[in-house]
């Protein structure tokens, strides 16, 4: 697509730039060419208007000889040849216009008068064309840099997407293998419960895989995932796992990035419940914070003297990073340890529609 013809705004600007050129040509024809003002105006204005469009053809010679890869001699030869051709065409048009105007009584003899102005017209024609060549090179390079910028931002977006995806699809292998072991134990002692656990685990995995694909999901879906997870863990830990949940019904439709809550709940189980011989509690509190913001708080008790488990902190870092990628400054993320209580509070803009 031609960079000037393709956009109406650019074409208007380009033609506007020809107005002073037209004035100069009029002046030259009037003073140096000795035509007088009226005749100079009558010739110069239509000639400039036509030549403005002829010069647009410089686009093709510019594209054919890119600045970076063509030698100077090739550049000079190509553009000078094109300039001479364009100027010659212009002369033919000028001659035609002069002959046509000579039929009018006011411009009598213009066709003879113009003959001595040919060198002047030819010279300006070549110069104007070369000016157009320079303009097209400038346009070409700005377009190339725009293109590069666009590609770069697209690449960044792609990288962010794949980063988010990588962060999302982390099912904890400990959890899976421990579950399978529990199922293996239940097959002889309580087959019905073994089946129940298989179904719950399948439900959890299906939801995890399904949700990971999406950019934003309703809180309702995220909670369903966490409930699937917790009911599996409930079978593993039995009475050791106690859950208190408080969710305002009006926030259930709020949208959030998928698997944001889940790693925090897994953390509370792995670093809290799993280290407490007599069991522990998890408190989940989801409410509408400040207007238009969703606030989630997860609190659990833990054994401060417990051995550190591998991978501690990865889940938290992961959630913090994803909040930051999705919401930047508009998200808040706070971790607090108070004696044997650990809490994570996050809040971020609540949207209900995509």
């Amino acid at each position, binding site marked *: 697509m031609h960079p000037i013809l393709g956009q109406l705004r650019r074409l208007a600007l380009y033609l506007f730039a020809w107005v002073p050129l037209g004035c100069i040509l009029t002046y030259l024809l009037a003073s140096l060419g000795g035509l007088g003002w009226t005749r100079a105006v009558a010739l110069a204005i239509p000639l400039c208007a036509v030549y403005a469009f002829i010069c647009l053809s410089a686009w093709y010679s510019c594209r054919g000889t890119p600045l970076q890869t063509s030698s100077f001699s090739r550049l000079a030869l190509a553009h000078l040849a094109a300039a001479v051709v364009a100027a010659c065409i212009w002369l033919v048009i000028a001659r035609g216009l002069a002959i046509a105007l000579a039929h009018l009584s006011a411009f009598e003899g213009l066709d003879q008068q113009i003959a001595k102005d040919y060198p002047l017209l030819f010279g300006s024609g070549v110069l104007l064309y070369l000016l157009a060549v320079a303009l097209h090179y400038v346009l070409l390079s700005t377009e190339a840099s725009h293109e590069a910028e666009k590609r770069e931002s697209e690449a960044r977006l792609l990288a962010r997407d794949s980063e988010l995806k990588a962060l999302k699809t982390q099912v904890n292998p*400990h959890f899976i293998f*421990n579950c399978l*072991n*529990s199922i293996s134990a239940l097959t002889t002692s309580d087959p019905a419960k073994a089946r129940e656990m298989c179904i719950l685990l399948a439900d959890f995995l299906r939801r995890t895989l399904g949700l990971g694909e999406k950019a934003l999901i309703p809180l309702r879906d995220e909670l369903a995932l966490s409930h699937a997870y917790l009911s599996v863990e409930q*079978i593993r830990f039995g009475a050791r796992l106690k859950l208190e949940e408080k969710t305002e019904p009006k926030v259930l439709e709020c949208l959030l990035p998928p698997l944001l809550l889940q790693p925090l709940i897994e953390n509370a189980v792995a670093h809290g419940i799993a*280290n*407490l011989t007599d069991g522990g509690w998890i408190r989940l509190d989801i409410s509408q914070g400040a207007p238009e913001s969703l606030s989630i708080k997860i609190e659990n008790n833990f054994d401060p*003297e417990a*051995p550190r488990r591998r991978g501690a902190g990865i889940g938290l870092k992961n959630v913090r990073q994803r909040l930051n990628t999705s919401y930047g400054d508009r998200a808040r993320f706070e971790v607090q340890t108070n004696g044997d209580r650990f809490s994570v509070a996050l809040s971020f803009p609540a949207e209900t529609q995509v």
Partner: protein
Amino acid sequence: MSANTKIRVIIVDDEELARQVIREMLAAHPEVEVMAECSNGFDAVRLVAELKPDLIFLDIQMPKLDGFEVLELIGDEFAVIFATAYDEHALRAFEFHAVDYLLKPFRAERFEAALDRARERIGKKMASSPVELSASSRVPGQYAERIVVKDGTRVQIIPVSKLDYAEAQDDYVALAAQGKKHLKQQTISSLEAALDPKNFVRIHRSYVVNLERVTRLEPYGKDTHVVTLIDGTRLPVSRAGYTRLKDFLDRQ
């Protein structure tokens, strides 16, 4: 061991269902007797000391103490089979001279093989003590965050930041922390290897000191120095120890 002696077993796992699998698989073996089960590291150490079993099934991730810490405290007289859900610990387990390492969930055949290996092992003395191995199997750049000490049947956990200094006493080290001393069967060199050299310096053949506790370093007689700790304790510094300590203080 003779055929008519029972193999006495303790099962340690924090999940009831995981203990149940092992119990069930052992039920097929009348020569095996399950003496006790427990669900955390503290109880495991206490029960092992009380009941002196032949074989221990040991989970790795547990409340209170993890499986490696339990093994470090109970010593090397017992055959241990680790049972864990995830294989990131496998290499370490064998460095601890575990009889076998079961990945949950496991088949009955795999369990039988482990039990056979345990039978062969029971009664034999192991090559080196677990405490020394604990230090040597550490991942480079990762140092102990806490030290576990057995005091009779009680287990004491000393966070490394609370340790003031350690003193070699024959086969033991005395760990000074918060005004108390705890004895642990370990050489001072292996303790030194387990501690982060950024915070702990061997100032003497018999002493490792926590640098954060040092307030003063002064000459004491010919060739020797003395450090004074925050609580007023004075410890001797050998010539080599002085060089190490100076090096460290100059770097700061």
